[in-house]
């Protein structure tokens, strides 16, 4: 059987602008971005602050309608949230603090529309996959940052979607926790063959996790270049020490450095509302 493998996600000419022309808030976040994401690949989006990577992620997931362009997910045009196809993992504060971990995972499935009889089993398996079975009845406030993000990942996994969109999921964590969670994610990816789009600031994280890395330019963001990381999943911890890793990381640095500089000088030169954080 010969079947042309369709890309899981197809992005065509997506631009987005916040605010209206003439308003002070008018910001062009994304400019004419096009990209294909293959099934089962882990694609990283990396770039300086404000370059539109989170915006693009929200557009892919149907949380934001772009001012121009279109996105297709699994062959269908995106018109709103697609809870059966796409699951999100946010940076933090996305777990409901008044529910236990188990209740959070259950609630996600309830929103999606999973029957009550199935939910308990799926929750247990998802919690086991991230190693949180012993903490299932704790509240998020009682857990460390790393464990909270594991719980958020369990919730996303329990939804059994083909696509996972992750917006700097490890951004609020310390370096060591990030490394461990990154390794665990790589193992999970090898086991489940999900399509993952992963936004990050960290060069090392991008090279370690991704099959391909899309590098964004400064605002208004567009894809400057896409780098391929040719290394099979699950990636061993010693990949980080290899020559291939260092070369790729340096390549990324070279591409990003100027964009980061541009972003910083634009922030200090341009008009700013008092007390605004970039």
């Amino acid at each position, binding site marked *: 059987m010969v079947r042309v493998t369709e890309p899981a996600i197809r992005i065509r000419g997506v631009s987005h602008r916040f605010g209206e022309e003439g308003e002070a808030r008018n910001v062009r976040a994304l400019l004419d971005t096009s990209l294909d994401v293959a099934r089962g690949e882990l694609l990283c989006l990396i770039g300086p602050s404000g370059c539109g990577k989170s915006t693009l992620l929200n557009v892919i997931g149907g*949380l934001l309608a772009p001012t121009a362009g279109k996105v297709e997910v699994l062959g269908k045009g995106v018109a709103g949230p697609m809870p059966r196809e796409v699951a999100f993992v946010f940076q933090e*504060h*996305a777990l409901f603090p008044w529910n236990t971990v188990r209740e959070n995972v259950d609630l996600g499935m309830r*929103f999606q529309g999973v029957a009550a009889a199935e939910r308990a089993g799926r929750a247990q398996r998802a919690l086991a996959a991230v190693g949180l079975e012993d903490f299932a009845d704790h509240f998020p406030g009682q857990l460390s940052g790393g464990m909270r993000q594991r719980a958020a990942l369990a919730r996303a996994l329990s939804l059994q979607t083909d696509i996972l969109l992750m917006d700097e999921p490890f951004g609020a964590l310390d370096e060591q926790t990030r490394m461990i969670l990154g390794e665990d994610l790589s193992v999970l990816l090898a086991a489940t063959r999900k399509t993952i789009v992963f936004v990050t600031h960290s060069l090392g994280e991008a090279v370690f996790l991704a099959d391909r890395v899309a590098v964004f330019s400064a605002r208004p963001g567009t894809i400057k270049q896409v780098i391929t990381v040719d290394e099979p999943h699950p990636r061993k911890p010693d990949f980080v020490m290899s020559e291939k890793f260092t070369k790729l990381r340096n390549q990324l640095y070279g591409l990003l450095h100027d964009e980061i500089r541009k972003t910083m000088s634009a922030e200090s030169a341009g008009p700013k509302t008092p007390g605004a954080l970039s």
Partner: protein
Amino acid sequence: MRSARKPAGRLGVLATQAAFVAGILALWYLATTRWGVSRILLPSPVAVWNALVNVVTSGEFLPDLRVTLFEVAVAFAISATCGVTIGYLVSRSGFRTRVYEPLFAAMYAVPLILFLPLYVLWFGLGPASKIALGATISFFPVALNTITGFSHVDRTLVTAARSMGASGFALFRFVLLPAAFPVILAGMRLGFTVALLSIIGTEVLASLAGLGHHIVELSENMEPARMFAYVAFVVAIAAVLNFAVSLLEAWGRRW
């Protein structure tokens, strides 16, 4: 920066408080028995104590207590339901919030008990005027806190829920309401306290029944010991009710 409370320090604090209270009681006793302060103005603590025991054991406070509690319950029920409903409706739109919240805050700052004569004109001296005024006054903290509670739900939580397919009622029941609940509950506690205070106040000012009214009656009948006893009784009831309500609020915050 919290330093461990040394047991010795704690003992010293308690001892000082006990000494202070004892000192006040001693002054009170001396003032009425030795220093010739008029018994009509300040009854002796012994007389007050005896009157208190008498009041409590005879149960003569019951009819008035019933009236007062009834008024508080009805007034609070009205203000809580209206406050939460209207607060929620206002919070639905950022624009409506910016229009109405300052209005509510401004009205809350006025001592609304000022309108008592008006309410008496409209509703007479019976429970209706007290319930109406109590409900009016306690509406504002409930509504304001409800608005704040719903407006300040973490946006990430709402986005996450939407991404998983939640909308409409599911979003309200599983995300908005639990998130806003602690703040709303705080507002209701404030509303209850305010309702209690304003009803006792209106009973003192213009009423035919209730605990506040009874206190005024005793004052006019020159029964100071009994009056002091009732004051102590009302203070105790208010403290107990407020404590119970704050326990409820703490339960609501248990996560």
